[in-house]
């Protein structure tokens, strides 16, 4: 915590190579967003899903663009790690295949040592806040530009999932709040059941044009 130095500080003169006046930073924390008036483009900006999304016959898909996505890595057996995260996020770290929902954020379980937090709060602040609390062996990675969240909803939404993925989405196997990462069309997605007929899909930017095309192809013929 004392060692926390954002690499903003590295900018010009304080290169640690040259000036060893402060303790070197362990991790490079960077505010990657601009406060200025700069045009952002979401991964699906050029697809049918952009803006108001696409819908037909009881299936709707819209993007929840420009959320902050942060990967958290750490050891669940490390009580300090758990409590640091929980204090910083004011949320519980979800159990296996679960999510936890806060006012501004959702934390998704990804793997035994990996979680994803998606929040409408600033990524830098969130990360800084977490890093301030954390110590020991952990990692935080800002991936906000690398993925986006889609909201799939409607009474027929499960049909889209059944066409795209071999996983069992039946309520008995996939209750509200569960999350998995699985095969989706010929790419992959993190899928979270938000309510009976609402699903969050988190997909990678570089695959999003393809997936949007797939979704469009499905929805117009469903």
């Amino acid at each position, binding site marked *: 915590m004392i060692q926390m130095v954002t690499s903003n500080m590295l900018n010009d003169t304080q290169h640690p190579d040259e000036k060893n006046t402060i303790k070197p930073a362990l991790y490079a924390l960077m505010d990657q967003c601009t406060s200025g008036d700069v045009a952002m483009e979401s991964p699906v900006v050029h697809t049918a899903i952009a803006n108001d999304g696409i819908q037909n016959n009881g299936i709707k898909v819209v993007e929840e663009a420009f959320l902050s996505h942060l990967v958290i890595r750490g050891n669940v057996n490390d009580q300090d790690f758990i409590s640091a995260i929980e204090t910083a996020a004011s949320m519980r770290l979800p159990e296996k295949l679960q999510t936890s929902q806060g006012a501004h954020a959702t934390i998704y379980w990804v793997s035994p040592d990996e979680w994803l937090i998606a929040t409408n709060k600033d990524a830098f602040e969130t990360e800084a806040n977490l890093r301030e609390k954390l110590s020991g062996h952990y990692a935080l990675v800002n991936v906000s530009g690398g993925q986006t969240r889609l909201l799939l909803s409607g009474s027929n939404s499960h049909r889209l999932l*059944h066409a795209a993925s071999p996983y*069992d989405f039946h309520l008995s196997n996939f209750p509200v709040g569960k999350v998995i990462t699985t095969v989706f069309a010929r790419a992959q997605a993190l899928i979270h059941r938000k309510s009976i007929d609402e699903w969050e899909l988190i997909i990678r930017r570089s695959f999003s044009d393809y997936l949007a095309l797939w979704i469009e192809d499905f929805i117009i*013929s469903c």
Partner: protein
Amino acid sequence: MTEINRLDSGGNIDRTQKITFTFNGKSYTGYQGDTVASALLASGVNIVARSFKYRRPRGIMAAGVEEPNAVLQLGKYEATQVPNILATQQEIYEGLTCRSVTGWPSCDVDFGGLIGRFMGKMLPPGFYYKTFMKPAFLWHTYEKYIRKAAGLGRSPKESDADRYDHVHHNIDVLIVGAGPAGLIAATRLSAANVRIMLAEETTEMGGSLLSSQQDINGKDAKVWVKAALKDLQANPDVRLLTRATVNGFHDHNFVTVNERVTDHLAEKAPTGQARQILHKVRCKWIILASGAHERPLVFGNNDVPGCMTASAISTYIHRYGVIPGSRLVLMTNNDNAYHTAIDWYQCGRTVIAVVDTRPNPEGKIVQKVREMGINVFAGKAVIDVRGRNRVTGVVIADIEPSGQAVMGMLTTLDCDTVASSGGWSPVVHLSCHTGCRPKWREDIQAFVPGSHRENILFAGSVNGHYDLANCLQEAVNCADQIILNESLTVQEVLGDFKVESALEEPIMPLFSIPHTKPVMQSPKQFVDFQNDVTVSAIDLAVREGFHSIEHVKRYTVMGFGTDQGKLGNINGMAIVANALDKSIPEVGTTTFRPNYTPVAFGTIVGRYRNQLFDPERYTAMHRWHCDNGALFEDVGQWKRPWYFQAYPGEKMQDALNRECLAVRQSVGIMDASTLGKIDIQGKDAREFLGRVYTNAWAKLAVGKCRYGVMCNEDGMVFDDGVTACLAEQHFLMTTTTGGAAKVLEWLELFHQTEWPELDVYFNSVTDHWATIAINGPNARKLLSELCEGIDLDKDKFKLMDWRQGIVAGVPARVFRISFTGELSFEINVQANYGMHVWKALQVAGKKYKLTPYGTETMHVLRAEKGFIIAGQDTDGSVTPLDLGMDWCLSNKKSFSYIGKRGMARSDCLRKGRKQLVGIQTKSKEVMIPEGSQAVDNPYQPLPLEALGHITSSYFSANLNQSIAMGFIKDGFNRMGDTVYYPQPDGTIITAEICSPVFYDPNGDKQHVE
């Protein structure tokens, strides 16, 4: 054509819906609910095909998927042609167009028939292995004719415009077949709150009950079927599918079901609908209730149109109101077939006789038939059929109780239809797809499913329960077993039934009827109709030494057809057993494999065709590239700009020259976002890097970058890239575009399995960062116009440094690394800003004539500098030493890094290995094509010893000459030597071995102000 064989009533067809269709150019009518087969039979059509080898006229023999003859070409339009559709499966719709796939000029008059009749003797099985060998050069010509003669339908020539879909299911129980067994199992389970799918191949649920006159609970079984369906439909957890074939049973209870959604509606699927759906089902349990196929008996000329299986005739009568003839002779070795005689009789047509091969049939049903006044000849068999295009009569004789010989007087009976029944073959196919073998049951003369590892249960006639009561009971037991095993609670007990048990007399073990003449001289007795395999063919195969049933199959091609021998295989096995004097189980079956019935390629592919075939991965700036003349190169799944056309039609080499000069003379811009990027955090990150890279990482300072090469454990280069030290315990690794996923998995593999004690985490950030490279003497000037917070002074921001600042208003990490040899900056911004920064650079770059360039120019520029591209200049057999990269190996590391031991193996250290060098053509304007092979003396006779190949070759506009890199044996020691590159056109390119660095060898360009 009038429907001379249509009964006045009966059948599950809609007589208010008359439908017209075309067969072989002639128009026919039928009713909604007819198949092509039932409609053709109704109209008295006899010939639907010519046989494969002997070109004999063939008619419809069966009523379902086991039909071997009635194979049609379907379709009016080119794009919707479907080859090899079974008339017995295809429902008619208005305007349906189909024709026979064999017969020239038509299947009614086939000149091939003459050849077949006279040349037939020359065509025993495998005749082609024995002939056409001399003269050898003529084989190709023979082959052409063989190919033309073979093949059934034809492929469409145009692309399929229809849509196909896949649907995944995870369910508790899949029930295959909706006969009485399947239906009652579904009913019983439907009260247990489980997810069920019931899939039925035909158009209607009910199975054999639809073709018979049985009662359940005291009423016509069809009433019971309706009621059961109604109940099932009311349960949302039960999925009912008709026209849905369970075509494959795969490991771990994974099953594919092919649903033909619109084939009965029209040639092309109605707009918006998928033509077919592939259901991919993962189920806890399977109940196989797929029934049994009746097999015909084998006798002389048993293929003349008018010869059918007994049950098929009953099906045509009951399901379609069609009776396929006037005067019937029925031959059987069992009781069950008597039902067909009764059905025929009750239609008011003549049953000439029932010929029962059993010496003393006395069963209830036999009595009943006798009482109807029908002749029953016991202990006799049909040995031959009269007629060519249609049965005109049969020859019968006494048969020994052993079935081994016929004797006595021959009698001829006039008739136009011969039904035969040789017993039933359970549809065990699916039960065998995961490698289990069926087992023989002597009492019913049939194979039933063998024992299984999987959760698969068998109910009904598939398991040899031919009696309806037993059949239903077994299905109920299956359902109960699942309920018990899964500890399910049942709300109410469903599926109780009352059925009168109809005891039958045993079947006589008989498959093939002997003839008075020896096998080789008797009239043709067909076993596999589609492939023209006869008893004598099988007999000959066995005599020639093909004793294994698999050999017989392959030598005679029995069971190779579109029907996979559903009708004939068991008879064939029995004939082999007889010839070898073995039992049928000793001979065994051939292997059952998917598909149970054929499945369209399109269905298997589903949506994943054309644009959806494979993902196209785009960067954040992709749209700009599209709008600005980019042509793309496929790199892995990525689309990368290859080069940009400044104007439509600009030639590639012109574009490259322009781009290359722009970079070296002013500044160029490239989208480098596709490079793999891996975020590495943890206190042991440095140590880890030192283990997976060949060079040293211990001292890399924060703010610095370093190039690294990664090897496999065998010492061969597999990826390379630059890694930056972001903070003491935080690194950013870059990989090649194609290598990203592989490298990440490689790191994880070693971390998770070998060195879990190292504290480090890896995460892909490839998609998170948009990476823009600006290269050229004006790169700094350009950057300085948009950049804040970074001192760009060349001594403050040195080569292999990185800095953080603001570019075009966006926080960025800027790396001063160079793959072109020019002054170069790689700007990384969060990808949502990528397009903004890219565009801002375009605007600011105008005054420097900022030029976008693609991968090809990047390749030329790096080649001018002698930099390698992993994957192009390496191929998995190249060590860093072979590349002259000794400088990249650190032998001072305490840990034996990955690849170190591998590259120290004796062959990797031997003299004379191929080494990567520069190649300069003697005529500097001549380019050596990539892939050209070097030789020392091109005038030697073949084979020539190749010294190595050209890996990279370009025209360098900057140097105004060609440049190349390539491997040469012992190349490092041969600088200045001349080598030759012989070309396919006979020319020889002369070149000199040189340093691969063609441009700016001292690296001065990096130091421009």
